């Protein structure tokens, strides 16, 4: 019977060295290609849903900033109250109370939603069970302050618990 590979000469009673190395080389090539494909193609994230959540949160943020509020018998909106509270710290508690009520009424108390005003984080009651500091969204709305500074405001409607298992 004619052999498939005439160069693979083997000793009587065992496989040839060429056969052994061909299998080894094949397994190595398979592993190398799998790793290359895994670390290139496998790491491309599918971000469409994430962008959609950004749109929803941005729209909700615009409505939050437009919400009317009575401050010292004068009607203004949340955006104006934010600007005012950066100058007058006495207004901060009113801002926090009003913003928390809006978030909890609209998104429920079980869900963790957060309004970020510069470094300040106003969270809903649902965030109480979450450990650690949550990151604010990158989608910020700039509000001009009374001192000429820009106040960055962002909103995230559904913060997921931190994955502490993957933390170092």
């Amino acid at each position, binding site marked *: *019977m004619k*052999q*498939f*590979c005439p160069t693979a000469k*083997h000793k*009587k009673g065992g*496989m040839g060295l060429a*056969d052994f190395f*061909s*299998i080894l080389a*094949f397994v190595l090539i*398979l592993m190398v*290609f*799998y790793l290359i*494909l895994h670390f290139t*193609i*496998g790491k491309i994230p599918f971000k*469409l*849903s994430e962008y*959609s959540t950004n*749109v*929803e949160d941005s*729209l*909700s943020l*615009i*409505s*939050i900033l*437009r*919400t*009317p509020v009575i401050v010292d018998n004068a009607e203004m909106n949340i955006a104006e109250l934010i600007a005012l509270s950066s100058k007058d710290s006495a207004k901060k508690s009113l801002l926090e109370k009003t913003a928390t009520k*809006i*978030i909890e*009424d*609209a*998104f429920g108390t079980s869900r963790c939603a957060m309004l970020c005003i510069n470094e300040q984080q106003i969270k809903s009651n649902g965030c109480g069970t979450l450990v650690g500091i949550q990151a604010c969204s990158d989608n910020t709305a700039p509000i001009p302050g009374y001192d000429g500074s820009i106040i960055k405001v962002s909103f995230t*409607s559904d913060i997921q618990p931190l994955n502490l298992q993957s933390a170092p």
Partner: protein
Amino acid sequence: MNKKAAFDMIVNIFRLLFVIVVFYSILFLARAFIAQKVDIFDVESKLLAHRLMFSNEVSYTDKDIGRNYIGVIDLKKFNSDEIEESLLNSIYYGKINSEASAKLTLKDLDDNIEYETFYNRELYDEKKVLVEAKLIGKGSAQSLDTNFYVLIKDDDKLKRGALKIEAILPNS
């Protein structure tokens, strides 16, 4: 058949099996990283929710300047008898719309009143039963809720509100 010929045949069978393994390994490598099924239900239903949210059939429009305020729901438009028809005409999925349906629930957070309207009610009622039955596969449907915090324009007053859009799309 002598001993050597029998041995050669066993070795060749082994090699043939090895070639088959090589063939299937290449097939596996090629197919493992190709997405053969892309589930776009989330994107499709979010798109419908955004189209409804951005529609000037529900948003408040300043007639003097023609500006449409996204996120400010005009209660008069929302409660009008023509809204379902005008939504169907403005968000067009074909003459016979068997593609998308939704239920819009607007909650007045200040007075705790709920209003609701539908986009393509006929399909919504038909497919809602299938969603509740949790049937899967072709012929069935899926639903996805999208929530927005909105303002409600009730005559001259601006009230706080929450808009829930429950999109129901049939599985294709």
